[in-house]
């Protein structure tokens, strides 16, 4: 038994050494260069836990609206909810068509922004890192120089980063309560998220996020997934200002009775003078 443990430890150690010496892009200062357009390729936004395919929130969309099956991204499979926290998850799930912050085009928070099915761009300079997400114009600046506490909660929180070897570690706090997926999994404003970005080769990042939220979970838990570089020529972030697609859901009941919906879909007025 002892021999097996030693061999496994050796393999793990070797794997780590190899990872550190892999041929990865680096900045002039020698740090891994995360710059580029990245995207998760999984079904975590449908449900971060392992799940089979089920009917979606809107049956009228047919198979387009179905929840696609996924092997899950949570370490150990299930989120360790406290029993008292499960009822809210279930209530969220029941009202997901109208209450999912993604449906309302709200800023997705961390870590959900990472595995929304849309690309994001990491902009790494000599002194700082910015992440620009396609969805909802979400954006974060990762403070690498003088870490500080969040002055007040916000949707994308305050991110403080540092390097542990070749891994970018980002501590995120000051986040508003938000959903983690379209299935109603959620986290409170008390959560602290620790992200780890490790470039494993030129086109892949190993992403991990540990969520510590004692108000909802019995222990900190981790989700992990690879991120893939968008390598196609001309790859770029497109406009996805989703507000306009949430307006009918959110404000449709306030439309003037009898007003022509088609006419208002493309208003003549711009943003003003």
């Amino acid at each position, binding site marked *: 038994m002892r021999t097996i443990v030693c061999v496994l430890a050796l393999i793990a150690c070797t794997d780590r050494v190899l990872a550190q010496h892999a041929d990865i892009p680096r900045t002039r200062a020698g740090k891994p260069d995360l*710059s580029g357009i990245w995207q998760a390729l999984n079904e975590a936004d449908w449900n971060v836990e392992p799940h089979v395919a089920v009917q979606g929130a809107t049956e009228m969309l047919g198979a387009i609206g179905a929840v696609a099956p996924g092997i899950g991204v949570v370490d150990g499979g299930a989120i360790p909810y406290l029993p008292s926290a499960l009822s809210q998850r279930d209530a969220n799930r029941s009202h997901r068509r109208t209450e999912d912050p993604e449906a309302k085009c709200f800023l997705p928070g961390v870590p959900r922004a990472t595995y929304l099915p849309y690309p994001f761009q990491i902009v790494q300079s000599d002194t700082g890192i910015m992440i620009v997400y396609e969805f909802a114009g979400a954006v974060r600046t990762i403070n690498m120089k003088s870490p500080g506490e969040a002055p007040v909660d916000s949707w994308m929180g305050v991110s403080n980063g540092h390097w542990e070897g070749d891994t970018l570690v980002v501590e995120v706090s000051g986040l508003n309560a938000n959903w983690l997926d379209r299935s109603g999994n959620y986290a409170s404003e008390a959560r602290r998220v620790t992200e780890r970005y490790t470039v494993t080769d030129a086109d892949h990042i190993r992403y991990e996020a540990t969520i510590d939220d004692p108000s909802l979970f019995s222990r900190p838990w981790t989700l992990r997934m690879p991120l893939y570089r968008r390598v196609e020529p001309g790859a770029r972030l497109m406009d996805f200002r989703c507000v306009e697609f949430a307006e009918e859901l959110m404000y449709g009941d306030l439309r003037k009775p009898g007003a022509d919906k088609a006419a208002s879909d493309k208003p003549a*007025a711009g943003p003003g003078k």
Partner: protein
Amino acid sequence: MAMQRHASSSRFVATLLLLLALATSAGAAEKYKAPRTSWGDPLIEGVYTNNTNVPFERPVDLGDKAFYSEQEYEVRSKAPAVVETTTTVTDVHYQTADFGLDPDQSQMVKNLRTSILTRPANGRMPPLRPDAQRRSDAARAAQQAHAFDSAQNRPLQERCLLWAHEGPPLRPVGYNTLVQLAQTRGYVVLLTEMIHDARVIPLAKSRPDFGGLTRWQGNSWGHWEGDTLVIETTGISDRVTPRGSSVPMGPEGKVIERITRTGPKSIRYEFTVSDPSLWDVPWGGEFPMELSDQPLFEYACHEGNYGLPNTLRGIREEEKTRNRGPRQ
């Protein structure tokens, strides 16, 4: 008459001295050698403010007076803020001073100019071409006829889709004035605090292929001309209208921005807008921005937008009351 001559010659001398001072100042700025990124580009990244009390267009009574003197500037900086869109304070919850939103409560960037707009020389927007004016008037009338029918009929900024000051071209705005520039090899990002819109601008030797698609803020690409970042933008969505027009720019519409670091804590932002379908002449201007010692905080517009539904709710209630007629 002698007094008039004396006053006239004094003004002439003062103008000469001012021009000399400005030329010296501009010369010093041009001599500033910006530090470089590790890959060799001029370093412009940082969080800047463009908070100013200089109006976008020059007050008509100033004519061609392009600059204030230092003394005039001092007087102005102590006066109440100049705002282009006046707000009647009817609600105690929007006392801007209570929230630190008055321009004199935060870092103000010194600028002796009398207007942000410098071209045309009178500092005023050029008139729309007659045909464009007719189209604009018609579009505005159509919009106003249904202005409160639905959320989709409201202006873009009320809907938290795009604020006019975000541009391009950028424009100083009364509050939440921070602009963050980020750089990496091959890209510059221009992020406006309000409403957290990041323009990711590729750097290239020639215009990249944007696939013929438009964007809310257009397709921007940039290149360096010496220490100046030149950004060209075309393909702005036809749902966005430029200043003074209720119709969008045409296919030849273009915005050129020039960003130059002028000192350890300052940059100059210049812009030129042209579109032969709207104006006979291009228009443009410039303003300085200064490094802020404050981080840029999230301005989540849509998430807290109770103003839009409340506006519509109020109108619907008003319609019901009107339909019920006066009480008997």
